């Protein structure tokens, strides 16, 4: 009889894990709480640094999952897990030989940083809102007009002790550069500013993209966080910041303020971890057994991790990790 492994989460990491398991003669089951597969990538427009449409990646993964005949349970939420099975929200229990947790992470709720006015005034958006608008093909101010000055703010809900998120979300820097370029392509006349603490261009092609943004697109990078935003009478957003390179406070009105929101640990990580005896990092993300030779294993035998459930990651990293997690799980069930 085929060994059965349950993959919790049907985002890119979950799908890739299931595919890799199926390739090796294992029977994977994807349990996804949303009505369809795709996770955070659903609703994303294009991927850095190559501007590859997110839909292209998703479609390919979904097609292969389909062709393989992998069992997928959508709109199904997992409330507890152990190496030999998972408990669903409706009380059912599914049994298996091992579990891969690929439940991802949660986008930071920008309204917590009330000083930026998200959800309070018009024309304050998050990076996720912007991707949705790109996909809808309609990027405008709230009144329907085209923006003439756009500000991006990096590190919203990342590296911010004040909202209990001390970790770096890693992907927002390059997302900010990517989105700034996309805006500039849409509105060549607009001024685009990126307010940052550090620019962390760690991946292949990222630094080049950052350089291109400055040299070819004339996007302005200002080192300094925005301290507060307020609405103006004309419906614009006035921001206050400090340019820490010149050491001067600055104030400017912009048509759109885009908050580059970070990734935070899922709220249900705590419950899942407590039930299964799993360790979590201080950030709330799941902690792998170790960061070198056991980075896809948990501290509990038979439970493995793939994707951003352990830390913020890029799509490419999540896919690689999914392969590694599947292989580790196979070794475990066949041992």
């Amino acid at each position: 009889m085929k060994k059965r492994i349950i993959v919790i989460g049907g985002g890119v990491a979950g799908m890739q894990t299931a595919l890799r398991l199926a390739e090796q003669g294992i029977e994977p089951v994807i349990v996804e709480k949303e009505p369809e597969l795709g996770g955070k990538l659903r609703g994303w427009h294009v991927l850095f640094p190559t501007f590859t449409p997110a839909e292209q990646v998703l479609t390919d993964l979904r097609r292969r999952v389909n062709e393989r005949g992998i069992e997928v349970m959508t709109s199904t939420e997992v409330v507890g897990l152990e190496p030999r099975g998972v408990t669903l929200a409706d009380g059912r229990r599914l049994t298996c030989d091992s579990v891969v947790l690929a439940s991802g992470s949660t986008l930071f709720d920008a309204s917590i940083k009330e000083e930026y006015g998200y959800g309070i005034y018009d024309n304050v958006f998050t990076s996720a809102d912007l991707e949705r608008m790109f996909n809808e093909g309609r990027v405008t101010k709230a009144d329907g007009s085209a923006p003439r000055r756009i500000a991006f703010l990096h590190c919203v809900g990342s590296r911010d002790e004040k909202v209990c998120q001390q970790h770096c979300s890693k992907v927002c820097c390059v997302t900010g550069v990517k989105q700034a370029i996309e805006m500039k392509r849409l509105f060549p006349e607009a001024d685009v500013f990126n307010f940052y603490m550090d620019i962390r261009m760690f991946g292949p092609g990222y630094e080049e993209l950052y350089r291109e943004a400055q040299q070819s697109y004339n996007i302005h990078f200002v080192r300094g966080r925005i301290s507060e935003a307020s609405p103006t009478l004309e419906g614009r957003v006035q921001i206050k910041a400090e340019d820490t390179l010149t050491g001067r406070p600055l104030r400017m009105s912009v048509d759109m303020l885009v908050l580059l929101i970070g990734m935070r640990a899922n709220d249900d990580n705590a419950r899942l971890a407590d039930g299964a005896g799993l360790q979590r990092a201080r950030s709330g993300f799941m902690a792998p057994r170790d960061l070198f030779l056991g980075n896809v294993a948990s501290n509990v035998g038979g439970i493995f991790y793939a994707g951003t459930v352990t830390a913020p990651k890029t799509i490419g990293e999540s896919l690689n990790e999914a392969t590694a997690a599947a292989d580790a799980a196979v070794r475990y069930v066949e041992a």
Partner: protein
Amino acid sequence: MTFYAPFCLPFILGAAVMFLTLAWKWGKWLWLLPRRDKMRLLRGLPTRRTLQAVGEVISESLLHRRIFRVNPLLGYMHMSLAFGWFLLIAVGWIETIAYLGFRYVPLQGHVFFKYFATGLAHKPVFDQLMDLLLLFVLSGVALAWGKRFYSRAMGLKRTTKHVLGDRIALSALWFIFPARLVAESTTCAIYGGGGFLTGGLGGWMADHIGIMPLLTMESAAWWFYSSCLGIFFVALPFSRYMHIFTEIPLIFLRRYGIRSGEKESSYDNFQVEACSRCGICIDPCQLQSVLGINDVQSVYFLRDRRYNHLRLQVADNCLMCGRCAERCPVDIDLNTLRLNSRDRMRNVPDERRYGYFKDLDRSSGQGRVGYFAGCMTLLTPRTLSAMTAIFEAAGEEVWWADREGGVCCGRPLKLAGETDSARKMMKYNADLFRKHGITTLVTSCPICLKVFREDYDLPGIEVLHHSEYILRLIRAGRLTLEHGSTRFTYHDPCELGRGSGIYDEPRAVIEAVGELLEPASTRENALCCGSSVANTAISDGQQLQIARSVAAELEATGAEVIVTACPLCKKAIGRGTRSQVRDLSEIVAASIK
């Protein structure tokens, strides 16, 4: 009849040292009082304030009424020691007069009267009365011993850690009354007399101990009693027991209107040395109860300041929430003392730093009502939007101070000890407010409110917190609100409640829009959100720990929405909970008909 025996020497010397030191200390402190305070003292003397002060001395220094409110047993302990000892002295004095008539008797003659009075005919009434009083004091001593081992019985989870001088004085004090009992009983055993206590014990001794050992014992016991008194008196001015005598002038000076200010003054000495180190301030401190920090509380701050080894880390590590001051039985102005210590250690005004004030005022227009949001409200713009909606609904013409060049109110700097820099901000803002002819200044930040009311010179301008202002609008019928079924709970901000005495207005406003549920610690006992601008020492994580504990208490009420009336509290509590946290103005704006 002579009133001298060699054993009196320790007592006489001790008392002399004590009275000379007291005279020196008081004289110096009074002499160094600022002229203004000296005038207050002189003008106050012939008024009824003096009588009120006498009354307060009796109720506090002797009866310890305020400690009874903390815990009856603790109150009884302090009262039996203070009032009991006072009565022993007073009745002892009357006893001497009753025996000898009005004639000069040296101090030791009064104190050791039982020793000298053996040849006189006994007056049993006094014997019984004095024994009763001695028993009263001894019961207090017994409780003090008990408190060492089980302080919780007296409502104290933690008691003060004492310095060596205090321990010496404390030990001497504990032995004084048992020693007196033994000494008087021995004398009674030899010469007869005494009441139910000394006479009873004396009789038992006479039955069981031979006369020769008794004579030796008598001498030793009186020496021991006198030595305990002497040691205690010498240690007193240098130990916590200085409070016994310092609280009395403090009460008088306070009644004459003398107060501590943002700069240290000689009056502070009276406050600092009036601290008895009872430790009542330790339990209410959230730095202690939540974070386990136990060397910064008011009792330790005052101790360190008194002995001149105060460190900035200790002075800085305080939320200035006022929970301890609320409970202090001596009513010491703890926050102000901490503030002026910070001022002494940190006030380094930088003249260039405020150059930007020039060119900042781009204001125009006028308004009957001025609104000052304050920095923290600008960081919580939901409050700002709500206030805009409220002003609009009430048809109020508002002059927006922040948009017209207003700067920080100055209180955060003041609380950090940078009082001179704070004054610059206060002056700039006050000039700006006056220029626009406003008659009412509304602020939604209690931190700003407190400094506007206490430190700004704003003649003709009434300063209101938005809770007071909104309540006026409602009562005047300018704001009609929908009463819903939402259950709210209210967190009292420190600066608004204990700081400015505003408790009822926010509650009345909440009751106008929904149901109000009170948390366990409320009003004067309300907890601090933990993010106080007054504390620059604890870490963000520690602030969060306090916020979580506060949020837990608020959530325990079962309310759907946590309401507060301070933007800083709102932000702080919001971090510690997933429940909704709203400013008072938000729930009002949402209920406007």
